[in-house]
């Protein structure tokens, strides 16, 4: 975090995304990977201090009926789970919002809040391996990991975007729609892999690694929806606004037959003195087949004002695909100084990161910057102190993971045991 997201140590993203790094030794003069790193969730303390659990049922953050409910604040919370301590939180709009309403007119003037209306798709996505247990003997490795992929994406239709973003009046005979696509799937995967040096020695060598996974999908669900309203000849006239929504939901819940699929991770690393270059790719060809999927087609019935299921298709076979993730890295080490560069796609877009670390005896100072998936520059900084077998680290980083264009700043702390 303190290095703008650059991973230099073997315990971070390098080993996660590049199977070859399991065979690469630590850099001379650099500490090895800690046996255990425990994040200190100061952000959770802050969050529950501001939002006591005992007051949840009165907390306007979670109650849309409350006049103080702010959907932007709630969305930002979802986009930024409060594990890290927020030093600067994204601003939420506080300007007046005006609506012009007449029988044949409707205009929404969001003012400064118009900047929150996304022109393109918006949402969040990720692919992670929450747990990876394995045994390794002479480079060969056998183990099992859990995996999770989630993706939620929204897109405003052009006409709705025009109304909300530009403040244009609602017009006759027009569809105003919002579409969403979401997917979540999770499971576990027994894995068999190998990593080793195939050329050279520890000072100058070429490493390769790979792992094959047999994915078992425990549960999955996806939904695609389009909803909104259609205007008639008069906005609020005798031909009223027609609400419309169609929804397709496919799911294979816990307890159904498992999904199955095969995928591989591949990685290479070239080490030449102080220089290190690597490329790792994960989940290549990871397509899961779900043999017992249910798919529902639904629409909004304007007569009954209810969602009506038109058809149900059970025991269908569907396929889902895990995104291919990759990490390319370059590092240069001299003495107690290491600088590095990462290009990473962790399932939520490509990010470019540059960072450096300088050690002064027991102290370490870190800094970095990166370009996120929104192509915005983000900054990080921090440090740590080594006390015997323990190291206490603190990092600060900016991010734009909120609806606001302004960066927020968070602080993370962790305790590592070597």
């Amino acid at each position, binding site marked *: 975090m303190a290095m703008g997201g650059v991973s230099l140590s073997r315990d971070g993203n390098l080993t996660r995304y590049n199977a070859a790094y399991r065979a690469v030794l630590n850099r001379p003069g650099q500490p090895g990977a800690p046996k255990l790193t425990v994040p200190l969730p100061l952000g959770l303390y802050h969050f529950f201090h501001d939002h006591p659990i005992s007051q949840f049922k*009165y907390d*306007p953050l979670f109650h*849309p*009926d*409350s*006049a*103080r*409910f*702010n*959907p*932007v604040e709630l969305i930002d919370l979802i986009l930024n789970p409060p594990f890290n301590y927020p030093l600067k939180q994204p601003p*939420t*709009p*506080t*300007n*007046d*919002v*005006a*609506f*012009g*309403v*007449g*029988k*044949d*007119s*409707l205009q*929404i003037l*969001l*003012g400064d*809040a118009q900047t929150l209306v996304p022109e393109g798709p918006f949402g969040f996505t990720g692919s992670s391996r929450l747990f990876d247990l394995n045994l390794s003997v002479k480079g060969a490795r056998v183990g099992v990991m859990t995996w999770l992929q989630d993706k939620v994406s929204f897109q405003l239709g052009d006409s709705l975007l025009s109304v*909300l973003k530009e403040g244009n009046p609602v017009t006759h005979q027009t569809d105003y729609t919002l579409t969403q696509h979401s997917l979540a799937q999770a499971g576990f995967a027994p894995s068999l892999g190998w990593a080793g040096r195939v050329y050279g020695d520890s000072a100058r060598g070429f490493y390769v690694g790979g792992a094959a996974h047999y994915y078992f999908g425990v549960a999955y669900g996806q939904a695609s929806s389009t909803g909104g*309203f259609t205007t008639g000849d008069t*906005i*609020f*006239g005798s031909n*009223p*606004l027609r609400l419309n929504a169609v929804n397709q939901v496919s799911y294979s819940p816990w307890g159904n037959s498992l999904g199955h699929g095969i995928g591989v991770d591949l990685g290479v690393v070239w080490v030449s003195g102080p220089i290190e270059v690597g490329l790792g790719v994960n989940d290549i060809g990871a397509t899961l087949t779900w043999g017992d999927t249910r798919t529902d087609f639904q629409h909004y019935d304007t007569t009954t004002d209810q969602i009506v299921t038109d058809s149900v298709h059970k025991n269908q076979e569907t396929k889902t695909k895990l995104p291919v993730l990759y990490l390319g890295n370059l590092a240069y080490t001299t003495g107690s100084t290491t600088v590095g560069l990462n290009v990473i796609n962790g399932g939520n877009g490509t990010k470019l990161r540059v960072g450096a670390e300088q050690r002064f005896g027991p102290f370490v100072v870190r800094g970095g910057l990166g370009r996120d998936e929104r192509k915005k520059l983000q900054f990080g900084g921090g440090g740590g102190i080594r006390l015997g077998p323990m190291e206490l680290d603190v990092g600060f980083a900016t991010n734009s993971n909120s609806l606001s264009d302004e960066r927020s700043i968070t602080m993370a702390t962790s305790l590592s045991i070597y």
Partner: protein
Amino acid sequence: MNGKWFAAAIVMTGATAACGQGRLIFNVDVFSFLKGSVNDTVPYVVPPLTSNFTISNPAQKINLVPGLSGSLIDTVKVTGTADVLNQAGGPGTLRFQVYLAGDSAGTYGAGRDSLFSPAPSASISAGASTQSLPPFGVANLSPKGNALFSKSEVWIRLAATVSNTGAAIMRGKAVLTGLDLRIVVQDKVF
């Protein structure tokens, strides 16, 4: 007024923008929902030499956005215009009034809230004539009128009170030509 679609408009826009610490402002052209229907007109037929003869339209319900029911209404500003079309009889006077209440019966009862005090009025000369009432308005209905808009519905009734000082039947109508509401919602502090 098509109260259902007035409500739908409020619901839709309110749901879109229950946003932030700032205020929500609804500028509602109420007249546009009444225009061209019998609801914008109060016809009168007043016997000779009769004072304070009151005629009104039936009360009409306006559904309000559910989210507003938990909100604190900051101000409700009303502005309007109306014409008096006297077709025969007179001379006399006409006072125009709009009543609000939480239910239909309430617009006739003591709990009603008169929008205009004093009511806008016009002196009507004998015979056919058309004249405009002076533009009328209320800067803020507070507190009773504001409270009405913090509920799920409000009822509105138009009325005219006519005094006929002439010896013939006075006949005509008061026609609403504009009625705008500006509802400002202030956040409620928990």
